[in-house]
């Protein structure tokens, strides 16, 4: 491609940018400080991720426990007896059967 002379344009740009300030001396130092800050905080994101995973695990196990909490009750001498116990779902039905049988 031809290189355009366009001398007026070149001169206009040269004048516009004649007083471009130099890069400040402290810029490199500040940059290194920012890198240091980035490194210091590098542990933060993995730590947050691990905390979220742990919280989810605890939450899901509590939810499962709640699901498996069985409330069996029967009436004995006109008084309602509640048996709140944590059992597996298949055990739950068995226990209820037992109570029902006792009642009969």
């Amino acid at each position: 491609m031809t290189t355009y002379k366009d001398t007026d344009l070149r001169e206009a740009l040269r004048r516009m940018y004649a007083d471009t300030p130099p890069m400040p001396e402290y810029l490199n130092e500040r940059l290194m400080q920012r890198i240091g800050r980035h490194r210091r905080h590098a542990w933060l994101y993995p730590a947050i991720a691990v905390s979220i995973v742990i919280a989810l695990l605890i939450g899901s196990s509590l939810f499962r426990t709640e699901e498996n909490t069985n409330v069996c009750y029967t009436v004995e001498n006109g008084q309602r007896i509640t048996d709140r116990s944590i059992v597996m779902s298949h055990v739950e039905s068995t226990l209820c059967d037992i109570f029902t049988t006792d009642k009969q």
Partner: protein
Amino acid sequence: MNADEQIVEAMKGGGNMGQNLMVSRYGQQVFAMIVRQVGDAMDAEELTQDTFLRAFSHIANYDPQRSSLLTWLSCIAYRLTLDFLKRRRPLIVSIEETEGWHTDISDEQIEAELSTGNEERIRRLQMLIDNMPPDERLLLTLYYFENRPLDECAFIMGSTSHALANRLYRIRRKLHKQLKKK
């Protein structure tokens, strides 16, 4: 091993040596490129730091076969600067883009119009350049002021040499028309 390779090797080795080398070698040029576009030294400092931080974290993406380290840094600086300028003021739509594509004026005519040596014209050109959209202004700066070849400008601006040649023609034609207006 050339200077760019030394810097990249030092950076891959870890530690701050490579980073210090990169900033001391190219910091001034990157800063100058940014400050010419944004006009404010404080903003340019921030953007220069952002440019180098991004370069440090993406050094694995640098391909010495495609560009020099300075061109690659300029490409990062260009994108960050353009984003910054778009946030600071809404992007001005180039008048030329709304006019469509015409090739009614030859390169020679434009070149003659932009090479008069007339003092008043140079001052008018300064004003016109100052009011240009940032990407057009940057293209003029890279091509005319920094004397970069068009393929390097294309790499920096994420375009092709052909597209930039057309763009340059349209900018020059726009300046020619505006100079003709009294």
